[in-house]
């Protein structure tokens, strides 16, 4: 179905199943360790060999020679594949750097060999026996240095020309404004660090390849694996029934899948490969660091008259920018505007999408700037945001937001959190040795509907089976897809069986960009409409007025059991949702407000988050339990981004130094207090047939700034370089002397 007019009244509105806080249907499997992840398909493949990836030990240069002799004769070794003997390999359209390096090396820990042996221990030991003669070249590893000469760039999908985006005359308005801010913020490189490492099990049957892997996007991964191996896509079956976290890191084909496929071909038996944790940060992708300059000019009454956001980031040749200015085009009003991005070439590992690419680091900067500006104006930061709210796209005022309840989020959050108790003067509130501060930030992230297909089959056993290549990366896809199908056919959730993430199923949205939930359930909705037609037809009912409820179908004064329809055999429906041009006519976004209270130890500078609240406006919430989990998880990642996460760059040799879970610090239990989430009631009929939008990234956008603003309110020391670590304010803390 083409979604080109706003959704009218439809069966989902009944919300007998959708919109309810159902426990996850995959919960009993996940909590008992019986859900099979990529490396664990012992039932399907007996006795696979193990592959071990060797990563490049230089950041830039080439391999002069590789001596494999010792490794090849090591116990248990079945095969070693390097670029020299892998045959001609293509490069996936979503990959910037090639996944098997050599002789040229593009980045540190780029895979240069896979050693296949009978056991993991043997493969690991043999990999350590490979002797590599590297010729190191000079690389570009210093973002600040390279940004001095970096050119303007367009948006990340290459659609926009590389230029500044301007409305009115920013420079003149900024110069004329009585109150101004001109500040520069930096965000560091960040690593996804999902709990399940990249892992794949590959098995060839003749020229056909089956890959169990851990990937957010089945069709992208399958397509890029076909391109990389130079074989027809139809020869590959690609499956990811359970994905142990992705956060954007598993959007694309990665080295594990390619190495498993190459290793299996060379060893002539199935091979599984899991990437060792210490390889992940440099071998795969990361969120690129940014340098962001923000200028805001306002009247004394707090009306923004000029706003500029310029961001610079770096990536490998052919790579893309971190689009940190996205939200600044849309979040606040202002007649004179400027946004621009610069992209430097760096020889560090590949930069790419991490949860809320663009807005996550962009909001970290913008929402500190708004806090600073409110303080200069002597305004409450909520009142300043309310005053500059806009109901239309500020760059194209003829284009309204489909729904925008930012002000409600701010006000309801303020009430709930007790914002009125905050002392706007920083460094005033003490609780023993703790300096106490409250901070807040707006949340903002666009929402989009992307094509997504599904197939549903109502069996004679009364079970409704849903098949789609959609993935569940912890987001709750299994459950909300089941709820959608149950609602559409008037069945209880336990009569629905959901099968996901197999390339034999219809191509779906996949999990990314917070488009997964609304798009994939809309695809299921479309398929269910087809099935309802088939049911009505078989029962001789009029499709348009048939009501599916409680296992029965009613039309006018006629009624029949749903089971009657399948007596003569199973019925199926297949369709996909495709977006129309509603996203051109309307700006479709999600909104929220984050509130944070912190304590800062007056003597050590240690920061502790004491309370967190998020209020979200994201259309219909399909399952409040799983949606809430998406938001608290994002808030947790936001605390990480605010206070601890940073890939440290070795600018001499060009690599991320802290490439494991001991040294790349992420939040742990003790770092995270009880978290509260409120969802505004509401639907967005222009967003999707489900009237739903995404929340998984919204929850991350702004929370880092809310933490940083709370720290400032506690200490009076403004830190503009993330993460806000204690050495950045320790020497200026009040009252410690």
């Amino acid at each position: 179905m083409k979604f080109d007019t706003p959704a009218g009244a439809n069966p989902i509105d009944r919300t007998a199943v959708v919109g309810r806080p159902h426990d996850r249907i995959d919960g009993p499997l996940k909590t008992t360790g019986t859900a099979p992840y990529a490396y664990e398909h012992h039932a399907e493949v007996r006795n696979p060999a193990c592959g071990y990836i060797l990563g490049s030990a230089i950041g830039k240069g080439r391999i002069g020679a590789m001596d494999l002799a010792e490794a090849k004769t090591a116990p248990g070794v079945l095969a070693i594949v390097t670029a020299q003997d892998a045959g001609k390999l293509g490069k996936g359209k979503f990959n910037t750097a090639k996944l098997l390096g050599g002789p040229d090396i593009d980045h540190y820990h780029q895979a240069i060999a896979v050693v296949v042996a009978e056991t993991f221990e043997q493969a690991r030991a043999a990999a350590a026996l490979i002797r590599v003669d590297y010729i190191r070249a000079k690389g570009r590893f210093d973002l600040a240095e390279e940004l001095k000469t970096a050119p303007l760039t367009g948006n990340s999908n290459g659609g926009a020309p590389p230029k500044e985006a301007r409305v009115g005359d920013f420079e003149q308005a900024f110069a004329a404004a009585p109150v101004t801010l001109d500040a520069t913020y930096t965000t560091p490189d960040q690593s996804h660090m999902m709990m399940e490492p990249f892992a794949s099990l590959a098995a060839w049957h003749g020229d056909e390849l089956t890959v169990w892997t851990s990937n957010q996007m089945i069709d992208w991964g399958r397509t890029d694996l076909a391109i990389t191996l130079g074989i027809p896509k139809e020869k590959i079956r690609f499956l990811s029934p359970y994905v142990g976290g992705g956060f954007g890191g598993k959007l694309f084909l990665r080295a594990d899948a390619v190495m498993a496929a190459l290793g299996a071909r060379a060893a002539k038996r199935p091979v599984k490969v899991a990437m060792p944790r210490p390889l992940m940060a440099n071998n795969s992708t990361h969120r690129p660091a940014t340098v962001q300059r923000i200028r805001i000019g306002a009247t004394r009454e707090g009306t923004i008259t000029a706003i500029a956001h310029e961001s610079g980031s770096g990536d490998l040749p052919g790579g893309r920018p971190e689009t940190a200015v996205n939200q600044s085009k849309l979040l606040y009003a202002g007649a004179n505007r400027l946004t621009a991005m610069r992209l430097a070439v760096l020889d560090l590992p590949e930069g790419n999408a991490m949860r809320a690419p663009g807005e996550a680091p962009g909001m970290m900067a913008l929402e500190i700037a708004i806090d600073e500006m409110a303080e200069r104006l002597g305004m409450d930061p909520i009142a300043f945001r309310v005053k500059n709210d806009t109901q239309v796209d500020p760059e194209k005022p003829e284009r309204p937001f489909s729904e925008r309840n930012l002000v409600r989020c701010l006000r309801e959050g303020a009430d709930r959190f007790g914002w009125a108790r905050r002392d706007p003067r920083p460094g005033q509130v003490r609780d023993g040795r703790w300096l106490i501060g409250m901070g807040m930030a707006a949340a903002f992230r666009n929402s989009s509907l992307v094509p997504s297909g599904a197939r549903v089959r109502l069996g004679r056993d009364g079970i409704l089976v849903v098949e789609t290549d959609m993935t569940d990366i912890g987001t709750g896809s299994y459950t909300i897809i089941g709820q959608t199908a149950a609602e559409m056919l008037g069945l209880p959730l336990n009569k629905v069986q959901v099968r996901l993430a197999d390339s034999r199923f219809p191509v779906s949205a996949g999990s990314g960009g917070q488009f997964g939930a609304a798009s994939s359930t809309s695809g299921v909705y479309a398929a269910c409409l087809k099935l309802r037609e088939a049911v009505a037809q078989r029962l001789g009912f009029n499709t348009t007025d048939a009501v599916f409820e409680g296992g029965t179908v009613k039309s006018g004064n006629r009624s029949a059991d749903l089971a009657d329809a399948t007596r003569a055999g199973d019925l199926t429906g297949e369709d996909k949702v495709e977006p129309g041009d509603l996203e051109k006519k309307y700006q479709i976004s999600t909104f929220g407000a984050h509130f944070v209270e912190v304590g800062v130890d007056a003597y050590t500078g240690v920061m502790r988050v004491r309370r967190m609240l998020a209020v979200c406006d994201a259309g219909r919430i399909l399952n409040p339990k799983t949606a809430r989990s998406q938001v608290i998880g994002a808030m947790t990642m936001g605390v990480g981004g605010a206070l601890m996460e940073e890939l440290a760059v070795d600018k001499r040799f060009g690599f991320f130094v802290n490439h494991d879970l001991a040294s790349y610090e992420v939040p742990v239990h003790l770092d995270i207090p009880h978290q509260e989430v409120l969802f505004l009631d509401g639907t967005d009929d222009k967003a999707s047939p489900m009237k739903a939008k995404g929340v998984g990234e919204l929850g991350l956008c702004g929370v880092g700034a809310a933490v940083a603003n709370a720290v400032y309110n506690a200490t009076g020391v403004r830190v503009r370089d993330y993460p806000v670590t204690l050495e950045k304010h320790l020497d200026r803390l009040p009252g410690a002397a």
Partner: protein
Amino acid sequence: MADLPELDISRRGMLGGGTATVVIAASPVAAAQDKEPMQADPPAPIPLSFEVNGEKRDLTLDSRTTLLDALREHLHLTGTKKGCDHGQCGACTVLVDGVRINSCLTLAVMHQGDRITTIEGLGTPDRLHPMQAAFVQHDGYQCGYCTPGQICSAVAVLDEIGRGVPSYVAADLTERPRMTDIEMRERMSGNICRCGAYSNIAEAMAQVAGERA
């Protein structure tokens, strides 16, 4: 590569400014072997028996095999997860003689005669352990990969508090610890959940602790 023409020169000693030749062996062990490579004899497999989830298991294993890989690769008990293999994440947490450990940091051969409980031994999808049921009820997980380790740790943490084992957040080491939020959060901090389900895990644990109290 156009800006680095010197890379076309491959012979050592001929390289110009901006490049250097480095020979890096893949491991310090290999680097130390400067002449004839020594081929060590393959380690002899070692027979071993222990009890897993109440069942006696006999294995013959490479001495380098961790307890984690013995469970996952040899017994196909894949509920115990490998997140980092370096004792940094807690996904591999199992109970050995009732005490939680990171099974990636211990070799299987060190556990002759031990009694090991994995997530599969706590409960099954049809008969969930109370902690497993509480995780489902409170949505104390998302992707599910750290979950078995979280649940094994949670079960052990309640036991540790019950036995009076002190912790970093104990204000007074002479007093028995109580089942407080801060005690549980501190003790669970070796189990990373990147999806960020901590707040829900805390609620699940509080419920089970309350039922026990």
